[in-house]
């Protein structure tokens, strides 16, 4: 009679062998998102987008080998990012990993680079992400490009005096610099720039200082959704009635839904949810059907992130080239321009995307494109 220990050992060996066999037959794609803690809202949103893309890729039979998703919880910390990336690169043997958050990206980038894993950022917009690693790809336009897009709109609307509330990180610093340099060219002035720590949740004192500088518009530059939510709420509670403006973080469902965000303007990559263009229409309808909610641009980025993988892998499969991180990156740099949901996306020499930017307004708990 087989001993229990022998039975367990042989069972484990069979499982490991099956897993190894399955891996050789599949394209392993990893996700490294925060799935716990205060940033889990982002992780769930991003994962849902990746799963919707997987449904569409599978339905279209784009690839000969199936895609197998492996998820790791980055906890939105550098340490979580490093551990998760090591796991995805060396245990799961992922050739392509979708990730977000600046600290996570910076910790994961050297590990991914060493292991030749293509890393796709669709959430972090700090300009310092542009040159992390040759294998680090930004599928989202970085924040400085979003500010460049909002400046003419501010001038057109006669919002010449702008107050900036920003977290003093590379993202906030770059937005501050863009405003300081760009506003005068449009006939405007940066009347105040107020730096806040990322943990701050009380903005009564900031509201008083904002009121003092008499701005026409208040721009928020924080990468933290909960903080943006509090900024908007507390400034309104403190009698600041001026126009609120922010970058693509304003597109988070929790921000769009809160009453104090009514009228808030935010930029983001072009994504017209009412468009009849087949790719974007399919994404929007798929999202509404599957998740019973309105889509957001962050979801579109990660949807496009996996779609990009399918396009690259499809090209490699057709050419009979093995699908590895190295070949995927080479294919990306060879093709450069892709027709993704939302429009054409072109990658520069640092593998950072540039695409059309749109301006949206929060109205009635929804976002609507205004420019």
């Amino acid at each position: 009679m087989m001993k229990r220990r022998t039975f367990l050992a042989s069972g484990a060996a069979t499982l490991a062998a099956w897993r190894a066999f399955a891996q050789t037959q599949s394209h392993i794609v990893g996700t490294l998102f925060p799935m716990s803690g205060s940033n889990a809202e982002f992780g769930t949103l991003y994962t849902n987008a990746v799963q919707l893309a997987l449904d569409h890729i599978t339905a279209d039979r784009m690839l000969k080998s199936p895609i197998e998703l492996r998820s790791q919880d980055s906890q939105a910390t550098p340490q979580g990012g490093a551990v998760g990336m090591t796991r995805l690169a060396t245990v799961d043997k992922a050739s392509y990993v979708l990730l977000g958050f600046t600290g996570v990206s910076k910790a994961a980038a050297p590990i991914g680079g060493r292991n030749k894993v293509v890393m796709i950022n669709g959430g972090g917009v700090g300009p310092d992400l542009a040159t992390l690693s040759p294998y680090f790809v930004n599928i989202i336009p970085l924040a400085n490009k979003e500010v460049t897009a909002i400046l003419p709109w501010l001038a057109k609307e006669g919002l010449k005096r702008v107050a900036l509330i920003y977290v003093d990180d590379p993202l906030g610093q770059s937005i501050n610099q863009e405003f300081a340099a760009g506003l005068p060219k449009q006939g405007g002035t940066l009347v105040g720039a107020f730096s806040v720590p990322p943990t701050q949740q009380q903005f009564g004192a900031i509201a008083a200082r904002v009121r003092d500088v008499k701005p026409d518009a208040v721009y928020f530059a924080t990468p933290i959704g909960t903080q943006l939510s509090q900024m908007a709420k507390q400034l309104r509670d403190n009698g600041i009635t001026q126009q609120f403006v922010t970058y693509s973080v304003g597109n988070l469902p929790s921000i769009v839904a809160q009453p104090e965000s009514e009228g808030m303007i935010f930029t983001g990559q072009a994504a017209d949810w009412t468009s009849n263009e087949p790719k974007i229409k399919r994404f929007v309808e798929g999202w509404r059907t599957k998740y019973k909610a309105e889509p957001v641009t962050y979801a579109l980025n990660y949807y496009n992130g996996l779609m990009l993988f399918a396009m690259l892998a499809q090209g490699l499969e057709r050419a009979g080239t093995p699908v590895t991180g190295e070949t995927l990156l080479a294919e990306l740099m060879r093709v450069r321009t892709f027709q993704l949901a939302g429009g054409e996306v072109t990658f520069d020499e640092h593998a950072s995307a540039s695409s059309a930017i749109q301006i949206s307004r929060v109205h009635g708990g929804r976002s609507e494109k205004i420019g």
Partner: protein
Amino acid sequence: MTAYLLNLATLATIFGILAASLNVLIGYAGIFSVAHAVFFGVGAYAGAQVALNLVPDVLLASLAGGLLSGLLSLCLALPALRVRGEYFVAASLGLQMLAVTVFSEAHSLTGGHGGLVGIPPASLLGIDVSSPWRFLAVCVGALTLSLVSIAILMRGGFGRGLMAIRDSESAAEALGKNVPALKTIAVAIGCSLAGVAGTLFAFQLAFINVESFTLEQSVLLMAMVIIGGAGTLLGPLVGTLLLLLLPAVLSFIPFIPATEIGTVQQLVYGLAMTLLMIFRPAGLAAPSTGRR
């Protein structure tokens, strides 16, 4: 798989040093600090600056990190000499908040929120130790040295003095123990070792920013010490292994949906810690009689 296990083992040894260093304060001296991540951070930034601007020698960087953390620990020792118990916890909490602000704002030293990137691979006296096996060996060496030093110190008069203070500060003082001096030395030793751990952490991640040195990290370290067994030599190591490796083990459970993986991990993690504190209140490595 090997690279992943090596990465986890290296992090476990680094956090082992860190937990053992906090154990000097909490377990032996009875100083409940919630600012230990500050000294971890000071060591990490100091070591990273040495590596980035001078030479990426892990010994030199660790010495710099350890010395600077030890010196700055006087900021913690000063309130420690004046207050005790819950009042000290409040004082250390203030220091933790202050330090996070300094780490975030001192751009030229810490890189601010963007942190310090591109920390070069480690060498040791001219020998390249950047490969995972070699760096793990360096970390295991540092851990062994730390534990042996703590064991020797705690077996002598210094250790007995600290434990007397922990059990009753007034009684120790009445018996002629120099309480301020003993506490100051304990804090300096604990924080210096935390600085060494910080330097090793900086080399291991090749990137550091303030997110690794927050109050949450300090609380996690405290949990490692208490769950493992405060005042025991091996307790902090057991606590480190449990708290650091449990999430990694849970991530291998195949049937958890991708969107729920974090929630399930946190639930199991929290439940395990609660059960441990109910059934092993003195910690996993402490004798079951409650004797230290």
